[in-house]
C-alpha cells in the first residue's frame, strides 16, 4: 500500500521532472565524482568504526556482560550458602527441640520421683504423728479416767464425811466402788 503510493508518486514526479529537464540522478557527469567521494567517505567511516568504535563498544558491552554474569554467579553462590545455612539452622532447631523435650521428660521423671519420695516421707510422718497422737489421746483418756476416779473418790469420801457419817470409810473401798461403777459406766459408754 505504502510502496504503491510511493511508487505512483515517484512515477508521476519522474514524469514531471522529465518535462522540465529530467532527473539529476540520471546525469552521468555526476556519477564519477559521487562514486569517488563515496569510496573516500565510506572507507573512512569503515576505518573509524572498525578500528575505534567497534572495539570500544564490544569491549564495554563485554565488560558489562562479564560484570553482570559475575554478579549472577556471586548471587548463585550466596543463594547456595543461604540454603545451606538455612538447613543447618533447621537442623539445629529440631535438635534443640528434641533436647528440650528430653530435658523436660527427664526433669518430670526426677520431679515425680522426688515428689513420691517426699510424699512417702510425709505419709510416714503423718502416720507416725497420728499414732503418737492416738497414743497420747489414749493415755490421756485413761489418765483422765484415773484422775476423774481419784477426784471422784476423794469427793465422795469428803462428801460422806461431811454427811456426818463419823466412821471413816476406807478410801480403798470407795476407790474400788468408783472403779466398779466407772467401769460399768465406761462399759456402757463403750
Amino acid at each position, binding site marked *: 500500500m505504502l510502496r504503491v503510493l510511493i511508487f505512483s508518486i515517484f512515477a508521476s514526479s519522474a514524469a514531471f521532472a522529465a518535462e522540465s529537464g529530467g532527473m539529476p540522478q540520471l546525469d552521468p557527469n555526476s556519477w*564519477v*565524482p559521487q562514486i569517488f567521494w563515496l569510496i573516500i*567517505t565510506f572507507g573512512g567511516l569503515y576505518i573509524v568504526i572498525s578500528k575505534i568504535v567497534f572495539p570500544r563498544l564490544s569491549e*564495554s558491552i563485554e565488560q558489562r556482560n562479564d560484570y553482570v554474569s559475575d554478579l549472577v554467579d556471586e548471587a548463585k553462590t550466596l543463594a547456595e550458602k543461604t540454603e545451606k545455612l538455612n538447613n543447618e539452622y533447621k537442623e539445629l532447631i529440631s535438635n534443640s527441640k528434641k533436647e528440650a523435650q528430653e530435658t523436660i521428660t527427664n526433669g518430670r521423671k526426677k520431679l515425680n520421683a522426688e515428689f513420691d519420695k517426699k510424699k512417702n516421707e510425709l505419709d510416714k510422718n503423718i502416720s507416725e504423728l497420728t499414732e503418737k497422737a492416738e497414743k497420747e489421746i489414749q493415755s490421756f483418756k485413761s489418765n483422765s479416767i484415773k484422775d476423774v476416779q481419784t477426784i471422784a473418790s476423794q469427793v465422795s469420801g469428803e462428801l460422806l464425811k461431811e454427811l456426818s457419817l463419823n466412821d471413816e470409810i476406807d478410801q480403798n473401798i470407795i476407790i474400788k466402788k468408783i472403779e466398779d461403777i466407772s467401769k460399768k459406766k465406761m462399759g456402757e459408754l463403750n
Partner: protein
Amino acid sequence: MANPMNQFEVKTIGPKIEIGNFDISFSNASLFMVITVATISLLFIFATQKKSLVPSRLQLLAEMAYEFVAKMISETAGSKARPYFPFILTLFLFVLFCNMIGMIPYSFTVTSHIIVTFALAIFIFIGVTIIGFVKHGFGYLKLFVPSGVPVVLLPIIVVIEVISYLSRPVSLSVRLFANMMAGHTMMKVFGGFVISLGLVGGWLPLGFSVALTGLEILVAFLQAYVFAILTCIYLNDALNLHH
C-alpha cells in the same frame, strides 16, 4: 512552483578537480557524505570514549545501535557473520545518517542518488559473491539449484534463480533510492502547494507536509534497516548456503 527535482541537483563546490580523465570535483553530494561521516564518527567516538559500566545517554545510544545491528546479524546470518559486523554496522549507520540528515530542510540527501545506492549495492553483491565462492568453491553454484525440485522444472528454476540473484544489486539500490527520491519529491510538491495556495488554501497541504515529514523519518529509518538486513540475508546465503 519550483521544480521538485531541483533538490537533487549535484552542484560542484570549488574548482573542478580531475585525476587523469576522471572528474572528482567536490560537490554538495560530497559535502553531505563528509558531513554524514563526520557526524557518525564524532558522535560514536565521543559516545564510546568513557566505556563506563553504567553508560551515559550517548554511550547507551551507541550501544543500542551496536546491539540492534548485532541482533540483526545473528538472527539472519548467524555467528559466522561476526567478522563482517563492522561493515554491516558502517553500512547501516551510513545509510541511516544519510537518510536522516537528508530530512533537514535545505540539506542534500546522498541516498536519493541511484549511483550512490547502486555503488553500495554492487559492492555488496560482488563482495558476497566472492565470499560465497571462497567459502564453498564451485559448490556455491548450488545456491541456484534448490533442493526438492522436479528435474523437469530444474532448467527453468535455475534460470529464475540466476536472474533473481543477478537482480539483487538492482533491487537493493533502486528500493533505497526510489524511496528517498519519492519521499523528498512528494514533500517538495506539497511544500510548493502551501506557497501557491497561500493563506486561504495552504493549510491542507501544510498538514500533509507535517504528516509526510513524520512518515519520511520512519521511511528513512526503515530503508536503512531494510538495506542492512538484506545485506545480512545475502551474506547468510554466501556463508551458510542453505537455500
